[in-house]
């Protein structure tokens, strides 16, 4: 027994020795990395000892600023004067979680105080140059942002007010408005009171009342939805761009269509017959017609066109993410189809199966059509100026993708003008003078709870003739089955376009 007790002692000493070894590993070998990690709250705390730069909208509206802290340990605290409206863009700068999101994260190196280059000889030789932050100006237009928010949250709708609106300038890629609901109040997360902050963070990380979305993950860039009929824009572009021989293909009028490799039949919305060439089918959003058209285009051309628009193949290891200067953007996906599939390709061609799209991606697609087939890199930063007002950095528009030839884009442009003039969006009531080009989408989905519902979309741009000014995508998920994209998302698009029209009187 005595010998075994000695063995036990040896085992226990080895155990403790392992703890010591690991302690040396953490507190000596890895100590510098851990101590300087941006997630270390001690590093985060340093930011609150110094002034932090302002984030402003394009018209000078202050979205985030530093003020002297009224309580707590640190000198400064962050204030977001506009409350929840810009939370998805600015993110928040917090003490506890130490990982600021949004613009606060993306442009942290400019926003936090950093040593300036010496301004004169005296500073160069004798003094340390002052440590001050830069200010970041965003491309966001508060008029459009407010209009989108008002429309998203107040227009009468059957059920929930969740959703997202993304507005871009098609010719530059500038993000003019980006609204997500639900959202959160960044002021609660930036409070010096850590307990309040933790509670707010916990509450905001939970899915909201309808169990759909957590406020901390903005829908506009971080949630994907089946694009439904808005994806017919991709199918149409594939025809003009890659399979011009199908341009005048005419689908014989029918209610439904079946495929050799499936026992399901694909029926048109409302079981009404439809058909004709694309000029008739896109405005009417003819499901069986576009399904067959998709199968004629084929898997490889459809996949290629989707990728040209910035989609990734579902499940592929490498996923393409739009190069927006905002962290957390998720990729949009096109179904991963076997080469000879018919039914799956048909469903994928009308935005079902494994197609899923962010509001940002759909807005980029609309912008690409509007801009003659070239999708400009989306961006939020307009310019960065130092404390003296000198320009530090400003954004130069750069093309991100060439989605289609100019001619193909123009053809799809014309089809989309038809949707607004006499197609599914005619009921929205866009004034003819705006020359609006849109596409509606209504994708059937199974809600997390309850009956079958639809994700309702509208994408579009204006004006559809001449230089485009605005491209927009609106998604309002989990609406009652009886409504369509035109009915729910349409008024939101109209409200934003109206705000733009009111802001800039037509020449």
């Amino acid at each position, binding site marked *: *027994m*005595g010998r075994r007790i000695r063995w036990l002692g040896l085992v*226990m000493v080895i155990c*403790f020795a392992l703890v010591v070894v*690991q*302690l040396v590993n953490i507190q000596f070998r890895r*100590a510098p990395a851990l101590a300087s*990690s941006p997630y270390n709250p001690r590093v985060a705390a340093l930011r609150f000892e110094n002034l932090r730069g302002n984030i402003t909208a394009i018209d000078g509206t202050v979205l985030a600023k530093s003020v002297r802290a009224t309580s707590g340990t640190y000198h400064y605290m962050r204030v977001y004067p506009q409350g929840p409206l810009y939370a998805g863009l600015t993110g928040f700068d917090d003490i506890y979680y130490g990982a600021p999101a949004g613009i606060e994260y993306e442009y942290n190196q400019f926003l936090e105080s950093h040593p300036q280059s010496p301004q004169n000889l005296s500073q160069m030789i004798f003094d340390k140059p002052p440590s001050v932050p830069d200010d970041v100006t965003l491309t966001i237009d508060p008029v459009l942002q407010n209009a989108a928010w008002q429309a998203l949250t107040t227009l009468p709708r059957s059920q929930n007010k969740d959703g997202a609106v993304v507005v871009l300038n098609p010719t530059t890629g500038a993000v003019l408005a980006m609204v997500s609901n639900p959202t959160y109040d960044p002021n609660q997360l930036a409070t010096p009171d*850590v307990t309040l902050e933790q509670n707010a963070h916990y509450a905001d990380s939970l899915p909201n009342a309808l169990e759909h979305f957590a406020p901390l993950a903005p829908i506009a860039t971080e949630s994907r939805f089946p694009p439904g009929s808005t994806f017919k824009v991709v199918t149409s572009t594939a025809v003009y761009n890659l399979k011009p021989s199908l341009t005048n293909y005419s689908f014989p009028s029918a209610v439904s269509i079946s495929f050799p490799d499936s026992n399901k039949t694909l029926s048109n919305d409302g079981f009404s017959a439809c058909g004709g060439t694309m000029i008739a089918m896109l405005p009417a959003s003819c499901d069986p017609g576009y399904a067959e058209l998709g199968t004629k285009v084929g898997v490889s051309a459809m996949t290629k066109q989707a990728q040209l628009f910035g989609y990734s193949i579902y499940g592929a290891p490498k996923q393409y993410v739009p190069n927006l200067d905002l962290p957390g953007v998720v990729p949009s996906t096109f179904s991963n189809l076997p080469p000879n599939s018919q039914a799956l390709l048909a469903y994928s061609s009308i935005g079902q199966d494994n197609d899923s799209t962010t509001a940002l991606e759909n807005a980029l697609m609309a912008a690409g059509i509007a801009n003659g087939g070239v999708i400009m890199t989306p961006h939020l930063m307009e310019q960065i100026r130092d404390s003296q007002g000198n320009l530090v950095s400003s954004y130069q528009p750069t093309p991100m993708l060439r989605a289609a030839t100019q001619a193909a884009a123009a053809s799809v442009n014309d089809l989309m003008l038809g949707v607004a003039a006499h197609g599914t969006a005619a009921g929205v009531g866009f004034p003819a003078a705006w020359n609006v080009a849109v596409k509606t989408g209504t994708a059937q989905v199974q809600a997390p709870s309850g009956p079958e519902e639809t994700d309702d979309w509208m994408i579009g741009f204006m004006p559809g003739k001449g230089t485009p000014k605005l491209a927009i995508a609106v998604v309002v998920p989990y609406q009652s089955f009886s409504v369509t994209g035109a009915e729910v998302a349409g008024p939101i698009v109209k409200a934003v376009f109206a705000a733009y029209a009111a802001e800039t009187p037509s020449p």
Partner: protein
Amino acid sequence: MLPAATTIRLVPPTVRHSFFPGYVAGPKPKRRTELGLLFFGSLLIVALYVIAELGAKSKIPADIGPFLGVVLGLSMLLHMANRWLMPQANPVILPLAALLNGIGYVVIARWNPVYAQQQAGWAALGVALYIATLLVVRFSRDLERYRYVVLLAAGVLLVAPLAFSPINGARLWVHFGRLEFQPIEFSKILLCVFFASYFAANKEMLSIPTARLGDRLILDPRPLVPIIVAWGATMAVIGLEGDISFAALLFTLFIGLLWITTGRFGYLVLGLMLFAGGAFISARYFGQVHLRVNEWFNPWQTPTNLNSGGSQLRQGLYGLGSGGIGGTGLGLDTAAGLIPFLTTDMIFAAVGTEMGLVGSVAVVVAFILMVGAGLRVAQTARSDFSRLMATGLTIIIGFQAFFIMAGVVRLLPFTGITLPFVAYGGSSLLANYVLIALLLRISDEGAQAQAEIAASGVAQPGEGPLVPAR
């Protein structure tokens, strides 16, 4: 027929059998050592307390006088009790416990003054319970006699929390009004007593094959039945209560003692296999364990809510890293207070943050010394029961400390168990004071016996001191 020259010397009867032994004056080198260590430890605790206050608020704490008085007073109380009730006991264990308790108090006072006040109260109560234990348990063999009463008490304590509502997902607490209590901390001692007494009584049956299977002798399975039942019920109850860490601790205790008793490697192998299987199943199917194992592999994932241990573990590692070798300095860290459950589960990280590698290794070394002293007590114990009990109590202290420290440094999956004597928690502190009281009682008996043997001048066969008594 005896040779003529043989003389038989009788061992003189001892005078220790009254309930309150008279104080025996005279030199007691062990107690003198203990007094010195306690005094030095008290000064260290007070110094740390003052430094922490200086660091945090740049002023000498106003209550330095009363604080010094309380620390020294409690130490002296413990010391006088030892002098009176067990003059030959090991002189190192108690000062180590007091030092760890003091370090824990300083860290708790640094981050949570309200808890610190309560902890001071619990420490005083712990000293009282320590003395009470020494008065009640005059001989370790008394415990052996009440084997099944002890088992029944352990069972009642284990089951009690099931009648109360859970806190933080685990049913570990019994609460009366505002008073919360974790009875499992006491049942660990009682189970140790039961295992030790049962194993000691059935040592041969457990280790020598006596049953016949065909033409081979195998171990008689019957003696294993009661312990398997006791152990299985314990595991089931702990599973219901959702306390994985204590399940692991009691498992270690059980298998460890069984091996120490019998020396049969089969038990060890079987135990390890059972443990591996249990660990795999619980990691797979119990949500909490699954979560803990995931965090262990990847603590760097972004936290999604307050209670995710990933965040807790990560914050602890940042603290340890920021501490580095010398620490940020007591009272000078800004962020360790943000770690969830800092004063209970993560107190080792707080020690390492402000006192650095030096401080954290000092705590580890304190536990190594305590374990060494505990096993030495086991080696000098005079009966199988007391030897097994001393080993079991040492396993409890040692492995409980190891599990939580290894969890904090990401050597093992993180489990919410208290660091003995250091962490905040009344039940834990009281139970651990009782535990060392029992350990020291065994130590005193062993040393006493050796002294008597030495005094009698005759070493009985097999009773020669295994380790020279010091």
